């Protein structure tokens, strides 16, 4: 899960013309990552294609993941049971 998200995030940053960090750490602040709004939109859509669910549509109350760690955590929390 985490690996898939990081790969897509790296691609989104590259598409947006932003140099990805050498290592992704959980404390990276998403809104300071350099990714623009279109990048976030594409990232969430591509993750839905890859994982077959969008956790943000499953939430009763919208939750704001401020860091990469929280972003990954939301995907893990809402993952369908195997």
């Amino acid at each position, binding site marked *: 899960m985490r690996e898939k998200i990081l790969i897509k995030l790296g691609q989104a940053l590259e598409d947006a013309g932003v140099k990805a960090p050498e290592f992704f750490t959980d404390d990276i602040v998403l809104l300071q990552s350099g990714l*623009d709004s*279109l990048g976030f939109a594409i990232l969430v*859509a591509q993750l839905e294609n890859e994982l077959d669910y969008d956790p943000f549509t499953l939430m009763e109350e919208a939750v704001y993941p401020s860091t990469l760690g929280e972003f990954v955590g939301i995907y893990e929390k809402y993952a369908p049971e195997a």
Partner: protein
Amino acid sequence: MSQKIEIVPITIERHAQVLFDWRRNVEISRHMYSEGPQSFDEHLRWLKSIAQDVTHKRFAVEQGGKPVGTTALVNVNEKHSRADFDMYIGEASARIRGAGAVAEFLTLEYGFHRMKLHKISCEVFAGNSVAIRLHERMGFSLEGVFREHALFEGEWVDVTRLSLLSEDWQKCREKLKRLLAAMH
């Protein structure tokens, strides 16, 4: 729960308070020319004035039925068929979902298809590279930089101006529509 993003007409009852809060939020106003209203009454007068203003078309951005930001076509010039684009997303959770890109797409569609505009421009503080890159990815081209064009917190800042022509929008809108299809 649907989290679709849409742009809707502004109503006093539904949007006045949240717009006031955003306009007073320094994290939002730091990217704007103005520093926001001094009072709620002043804000209400502004909302009522733009409702009567044919050169100002403003929308609320809603995600899943909840207001998350605002977008507008301002300085609409009928004779020259052009306008300036203006937007902010007040809710951080919506920024993470890409609401800004969807709202920008929907507003540009409205401007070029409903209002039949020929040209839409926007201005961004030169230091806001993420916003400039977003506009470029939405099809805007750089027109130039206004040097020391705005005074912000005692410092002169450059302002970048970009524009998008109707013919350029026709070339890139299908690709953007596909990319953003799931979200609006």
